[in-house]
């Protein structure tokens, strides 16, 4: 019996590690490096307790709490600071790693028919699932140990062994939790896209529930696995309870995934699949119609996500005002200096993060063209009466509209929530302007993607490194006090921070011009090169 279910788990695990001998180490090195770099930087940046308390002051507002979670701000040691600012965001990245790795080895293998080949060999019915779980658990446990002992080995006074291991365990437990979530969705959904989509949705909802909960009502945060991570109070109270809770729930998820896998047929799912259309709708008759049809779900999900993000950030705007109302000194100081209300001064900070996040969906939309090429599907279109320029142009237009929609939804969310919670709400124009001013930077990013697809298709993924770079210098730039040129290596560095700064028409126009040039060159390149696949 157990043979028919679990035979050859070991060989399958080795196969997975062989297939991922670069992928897993890269995630591993990236996450560990990121985790260890930050406290080292903090030691240099905030050597005295006085400076750290100053940092704690600026962190003590609802917007920051919504972003990074609650922290021990009264005793803001280097350890507490690292845990407060980095643990949650790193845990999200670890969750993402688990989601992508699990999908790759479960539903994606099944969808592509590789699982069938494996199953024809003397291999148990549940072996593949459990080999995946095994590999992921080992990876996450190793991650726990490496980051844990790594942090301790930095020799920072406030970072003791127990706290460091708890920090690592927070990351590892989150990874294991999302391993379970993804393993479950891999049974429920019939496609790898669905598996990744649902799992990332859970990750995003967990983050947002925690954000709203941390600001308004802490009980709500206990419904989010990402809330559990921040409840460990690493480097202050060191509470291991949430870790056990996370592992416990993960084990339940593992069992559920195993049960569902055992009772289903290969290549089926539990979410119902409806019989489809007999023919194409009048809408589906050119490349643009096809692209919209293929990306529809993604666009809707991202659109909702952006709206919710805007709403959740907007919902803290009211608290922000009341928080500063109680702190007369700070209110006077900042207002006197800048001539803007405190809430207004937080708008640009929020917008940078949102401006970067809204770049992701249009980029994904544009890069689909390259994905389709690799899957040998653009040749269906190009072998018919569709020119390269028309094909790429359709992708580009949809990507640009997508970006505009995302940025608008974010702004609408932020404005609407602000309207509800603030006594003197912003007018729509202020918020929309502050958001839309990031559109040219987004166009430059899309332009780079077009250029890469058109001229250097092998290097297309570089665009994500660039996005990551922009995120690091803008999100963490002020924290690490990067020089200004570091920010200006990304298009976002040229965007005026409305409403606090003045509009810089020149810079924005130049960005648009650069974007158009990139796009045109990319389009020309695409119509001149061989199609691969």
């Amino acid at each position, binding site marked *: 019996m157990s043979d028919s279910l679990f035979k050859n788990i070991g060989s399958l695990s080795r196969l997975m590690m062989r297939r991922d001998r670069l992928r897993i180490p890269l995630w591993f090195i990236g996450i560990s490096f990121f985790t260890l770099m930050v406290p080292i930087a903090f030691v240099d940046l905030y050597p005295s307790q006085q400076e750290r308390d100053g940092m704690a002051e600026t962190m003590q507002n609802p917007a920051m709490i919504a972003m990074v979670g609650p922290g021990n701000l009264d005793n803001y040691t280097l350890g507490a600071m690292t845990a407060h600012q980095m643990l949650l965001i790193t845990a999200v990245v670890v969750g993402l790693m688990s989601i992508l790795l699990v999908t790759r080895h479960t539903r994606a293998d099944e969808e592509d028919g590789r699982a069938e080949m494996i199953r024809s060999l003397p291999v148990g019915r549940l072996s593949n699932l459990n080999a995946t779980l095994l590999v992921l658990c080992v990876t996450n446990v190793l991650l726990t140990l490496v980051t844990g002992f790594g942090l301790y080995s930095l020799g920072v006074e406030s970072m003791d062994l127990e706290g460091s291991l708890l920090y690592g365990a927070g990351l590892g437990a989150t990874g294991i939790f999302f391993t379970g979530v993804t393993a479950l969705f891999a049974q429920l959904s019939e496609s790898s896209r669905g598996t990744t989509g649902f799992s990332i949705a859970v990750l995003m909802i967990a983050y947002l529930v925690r954000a709203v909960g941390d600001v308004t009502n802490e009980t709500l945060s206990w419904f989010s696995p990402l809330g559990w991570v921040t409840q460990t109070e690493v480097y202050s109270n060191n509470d291991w309870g949430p870790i056990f809770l996370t592992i416990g729930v993960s084990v339940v998820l593992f069992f559920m995934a195993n049960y569902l896998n055992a009772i289903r047929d290969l290549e089926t799912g539990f979410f119902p699949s409806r019989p*489809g259309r007999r023919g194409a709708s009048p809408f*589906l008759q050119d490349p643009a119609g096809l692209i919209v049809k293929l990306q529809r779900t993604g666009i809707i999900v991202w659109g909702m996500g952006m709206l919710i993000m805007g709403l959740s950030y907007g919902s803290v705007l009211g608290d922000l005002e009341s928080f500063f109302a109680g702190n007369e000194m700070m209110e006077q100081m900042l207002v006197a200096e800048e001539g803007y209300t405190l809430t207004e001064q937080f708008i640009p900070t929020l917008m940078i993060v949102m401006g970067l996040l809204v770049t992701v969906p249009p980029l994904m939309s544009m890069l689909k063209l390259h994905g389709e090429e690799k899957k040998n599907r653009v040749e269906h279109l190009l*072998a018919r*009466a*569709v020119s390269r320029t028309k094909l790429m142009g359709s992708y580009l237009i949809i990507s640009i509209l997508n970006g505009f929609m995302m940025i608008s939804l974010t702004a609408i969310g932020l404005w609407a929530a602000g309207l509800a919670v603030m006594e003197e709400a912003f007018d729509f124009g202020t918020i929309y302007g502050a958001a839309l001013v990031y559109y040219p930077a987004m166009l430059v990013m899309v332009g780079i993607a077009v250029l890469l697809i058109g001229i250097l298709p092998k290097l297309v993924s570089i665009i994500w490194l660039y996005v990551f770079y922009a995120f690091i210098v803008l999100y963490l730039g002020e924290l690490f006090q990067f020089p200004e040129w570091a920010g200006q290596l990304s298009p976002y560095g040229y965007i005026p921070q409305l409403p606090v700064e003045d509009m810089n028409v020149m810079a924005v126009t130049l960005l648009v011009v650069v974007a158009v040039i990139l796009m045109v060159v990319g389009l020309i390149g695409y119509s001149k090169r*061989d*199609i691969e696949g």
Partner: protein
Amino acid sequence: MSLLNVNHLTKRFGKFTALEGVNIEINEGEIYGFIGPNGAGKSTTIRVLLGILKASEGEVKIFGKDAWSDAVDVHKRIAYVPGDVNLWPNLTGGEVIDLFLKLRGRSHTSRKEELIKKFDFDPTKKCRTYSKGNRQKVALIAAFAMEADLYILDEPTSGLDPLMEQVFQECVIDVKNKGKSVLLSSHILSEVEKLCDRVGIIRQGKMIETGTLNELRHLTRTNIHVETNEPITSLNEFKGIHDIQEQGLALSFQVDAEELDHVIRHVSQFGIVKLESMPPTLEDLFMRHYENKDEGNAGGVS
């Protein structure tokens, strides 16, 4: 009149030369069989014809237009079936067929419905659920529902059952009867033999043989099976005799076409009881080009 003209086509990928000096000519109303082993360059050639790959050297004209720079114009009159059909997993087969038809600007609903019925295809299912044969049907239905002047079919029957292969062959003959041209790349030599007017064989990126089947047969050997009253002697002294197999008084061998006369004269001296001769099949022809290589190698060693 030639519809398609490939002149000294060379295609390089970096240092690797995939095609070298390929020549193909297809005339109006002609079915051209394009055969060769895996990796010989059939699909690469076809992708150059479609303007998906750019020729490194040489000229590719379809309907008198350049296959690369006038690709879109050319494609308005072409129907194409790829060998490996990858479809969008979350679209139904029916949607894909309609889309493909509309991308050429015309839709032929009645013809489409007829083909769906003929190929016994369920268009309401999502593409991810289709087997290889069913995905192939999507491409075939979309191709044959079009009024094209040239049909480019790259191993179109891989994955089809014999019944569907029959339907496919009917479709090709139908198209031919309307005076259209077909480029059929295939591994199923019996299919090529049955359908094609002319055949081109490609190996390692070079065209090694082109002509009508009769012309090609002329170059090859006839299979002879003979039983005689007395044992045949000194047969192996004749040139052009291959693969002699002896079973008592029965003898099987192959003989080059030009030597057939001498050999039969010689054999008839021994009192023929039974004589069977089979024309060479395309398979023999195809195999012989492989053997050539082996023999060449063996010769080099000895």
